[in-house]
């Protein structure tokens, strides 16, 4: 588990959001399976060397979003339907990345057509169409 999660405290992104993001990503990619146990808040805070309340906040948020469920005395586990949410989670992650990319393109002054052309080029590279 520690190898899966890393956080960058020097990033402008709050640590708890980074943890949430990474847990969701792990679930979406199948790295975290349904029913798999997460480390305790205390253990994760020690492993990541971050404040335990930050970890607790991340877990609370993940629970609120129904990605994990916490049973007192037993621990925190990935919800089975948390896994089922993966397509939606993947879509969320994808949307966030594309939004950031487009915002950046606009910030450097690219126009709509230029941006679309660039997008098509990169798309082709990453999702090549079958050659006939």
């Amino acid at each position, binding site marked *: 588990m520690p190898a899966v999660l890393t956080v960058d405290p020097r990033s402008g992104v*709050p640590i708890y959001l980074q943890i949430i993001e990474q847990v969701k990503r792990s679930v979406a990619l199948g790295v975290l399976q349904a029913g798999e146990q997460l480390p305790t808040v205390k253990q994760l805070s020690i492993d990541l060397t971050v404040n335990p309340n930050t970890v607790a906040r991340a877990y609370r948020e993940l629970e609120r979003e129904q990605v994990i469920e916490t049973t007192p005395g037993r621990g925190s586990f990935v919800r089975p339907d948390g896994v089922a949410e993966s397509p939606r989670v993947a879509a969320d992650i994808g949307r966030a990345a594309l939004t950031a990319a487009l915002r950046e393109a606009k910030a450097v002054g690219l126009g709509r057509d230029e941006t679309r052309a660039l997008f098509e080029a990169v798309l082709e590279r990453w999702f090549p169409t079958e050659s006939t």
Partner: protein
Amino acid sequence: MSTITISNLHKRYGSVAAVDGVTLEIPTSSVFGILGPNGAGKTTIFKCMLNLAQPNAGAIRYEGRPLSAPLFERIAYVPERSVLYDWMTIAEHLEMNRRAYATFDSGRAGELLEQFNVDRRKRARALSKGMRTAAMVAFAFARNAEVLILDEPTGGLDPVNQRHVLSLMINEAARGNSVIFSSHQIGQVERAAERIAIVDRGRLVLEGLVDDLKADRKIVEGIFPDTRFRLDGIADDARVARTDRTERIVRLLVTAGADEIAQRLSGTGATAVRVLDLNLEDIFLYAVSPATATTDVIAEERVL
């Protein structure tokens, strides 16, 4: 121990106000970081908290009551400079702690001293600055205290030991104790602290949860085609904490609503507008340095 409240604290040394009206509430079971430039008053705040200095005005309350001698059983303190007795060995310091504090764990202190590589047979004068800090840290963390007050606990320590102190602080928080510390190592504060306060020239300039500060505070940056532009009162928005201008670039530090303000800025003719995240170091630097301009600009009369 529940909340520690600092109310309107004032402390003067001669004609200099070291602490000039600071009010803080430090909740329990958390790690609270106090940041500030040198001479900002952090050490003075700690001294007032421990009755090592008498405030000129204001009060500090532990669980609603002023500090009394028995409370020291539950508070551990690591000062900024070495206060060890030069002529005593580390083992004698250990014995002194053991006799003075009922909850002192000699075994744990011994373990910590070993982990920091401090030879307990040596006299304090024979130890380097880092070793002395490490010894003081070891004694403090062996106290099982509910509140740990650490003034620059990593001063003089090598990176390995710095990380070790960090882990100790996080461990204490995980055990339900409170850690209040000041540090110039912003990376450490970012990891360990849940809440921070930034002090500058004796005054509190910023306070809050680290995660919230990072989430809410952004820089909205706009680049204009030339130096003639108006901000149309955007800088007067309550959410704009500060405006910095250099030539054709405007940076607005916003405390909330970054996207909305970015939209408005696009509307004023900026060619490139973007929203930048801030890490704690950025937040700190912005909080303690003066703005390069705070008012709306009017055409070419303004040369920066």
